[in-house]
């Protein structure tokens, strides 16, 4: 989890939702940074084992911050600037075509 430094430059904030919960973050944050600032560490599950993952590199290399943004999956949260009203969701991992549960 992350928190703003003490003497951060003041700036406007933006509202968004993560898995339906309303949150706010600083304008200028990427989606991944906004989630970290709101105490969200895990934002996806892996497609192989279903393990929880969260942002790892923050620079577009690792693809561990993949999220669903406004209904579009596989977005790299660390490269997408946060916008007002964004609907961000956990990216579901392992699929169960046979109808089983993880």
């Amino acid at each position, binding site marked *: *989890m*992350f*928190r*703003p*430094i*003490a*003497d*951060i*430059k003041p*700036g406007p904030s933006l509202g968004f939702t993560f898995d339906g919960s309303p949150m706010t973050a*600083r304008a*200028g*944050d*990427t989606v991944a*940074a906004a989630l*970290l*600032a709101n105490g969200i*560490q*895990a934002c996806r599950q*892996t497609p*192989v*084992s279903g*393990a*929880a*993952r*969260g*942002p*790892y*590199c*923050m*620079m*577009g*290399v*690792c*693809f*561990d911050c*993949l999220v669903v943004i406004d209904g*579009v999956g*596989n977005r790299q949260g*660390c*490269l997408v*600037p946060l916008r007002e009203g964004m609907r961000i969701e956990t990216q579901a991992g392992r699929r169960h075509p046979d109808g089983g549960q993880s």
Partner: protein
Amino acid sequence: MIAINAIDQLAEPYDIAIVGAGPAGLAAAARAAELGLSVLLADENPAPGGQIYRAVTTTPVAKRDVLGEDYWKGGALVERLTKTTASYAPGCTVWSVAPDEEGGFELGLSLGGRARLISAGQIILATGAQERPFPIPGWTLPGVMTAGAAQIALKSSGLVPSGRTVIAGCGPLLYLLAGQLAAAGADIVAVLDTTPRRNWLSALPALPDFLRSPYLAKGLKLMAAARGKLSFRTGVTALAAQGADKVTGVTVTRGGKTETIACDALLLHHGVIPGINLSNAAGCAQHFDTVQHCWTPTVDDWFASSIPGIAIAGDGAGIGGAESAALRGEIAALDAVRRLGHLTEGQRDSHAAPARAELARSLRGRRFLDLLYRPAETFLAPPANETIICRCEEVTAGQIRDTASRLGVTGPNQMKAFLRCGMGPCQGRLCGPTVVELIAQVHGVSPADTGYYRLRPPVKPITLAELAALPPSEAAVKAVVR
């Protein structure tokens, strides 16, 4: 500078297309534009600066000394570009570079969810560096990040880890980050230094150069700042992140003894290596650099790759740091301008002379750092079988070793076919070096003999809708219409 915010604003063809707006890309774009050429600078990030000067024009960190004076030097590079006629496209991903039929190149770009193919006469790849993979048990747990990731959160968003933070690894950037985070008020409970003591032996012959280099003063200052305030533990030989669904601690082995330190964030760093995905996919030759211990595109004195017309500038062609990256960008740009016929060889050489002299100075002492901070074998090729190596496909060290020895797999491309390592969305960026290392170890050969992944465009995932919406070229239509 012309800001490109939508893909249809691109006015092709460009004389020179540059990929990456870190120090190398910024300097190359500015230099080429100042000489009157049409330049496109495409960058994946929302703001210029690359990683080292990340968010230098937009950072919410108000106190200058938190990030240090070197960071703010990036502002001048951005300002120089702003005064030129170069086009700068932030948030723009270059997913393909290939020769076209007219002797130039075709680039595949995506911006704002739309793709386009554009043409350029010369290409300069300034894709920079990425963190060297640091595979330990538990490194995939949420709360474990690269040190660079924490630095990016600080630079671009003014964020620091909020709980007990442990920093582990080695190298100048680790000490820089420890100092920056401490200055920004983070609670750093331990700095775990993995520098192998015997590295001093191999690094010692390079010490005299280091002592005369600009690195020395900077390094001493960093160490003094970090060591004064923080709890350093040296001689760390093994690490494991603990936790069920997020990191709750780190197990440390040093001097044969093991202890667990409770933490809420674990930041890992074992130096940086060139980001080679785009140059590799474009077909540029690469080699294994035994000093920096990483795959590196092969370039000449003008940073030209094995493909005429594609140059690779900055840390993407070997780690040299921010200052050298800008100089290498400058030199690569001059040669690109010469190739396009706008400078003679003599003009190019005389323009490049001051940058060359500076470059030699800026790289002095680098070898010492490379040798001293080369990670130990046990971190390059993790001994614990359960350690995940390919984070995307969750392939472990044990599986890779087993497949290499029992099935006689001799290279990473064959390994892909058996285990899918390197076939997830990161396209081998986080597993490639380790997979090579493990195969090399099993067969008792060098990483150079083992080879690296053959990568293919698109080097970043793009949607089928983006591809399908591309206007078909005449050649593409002919290929499928009978």
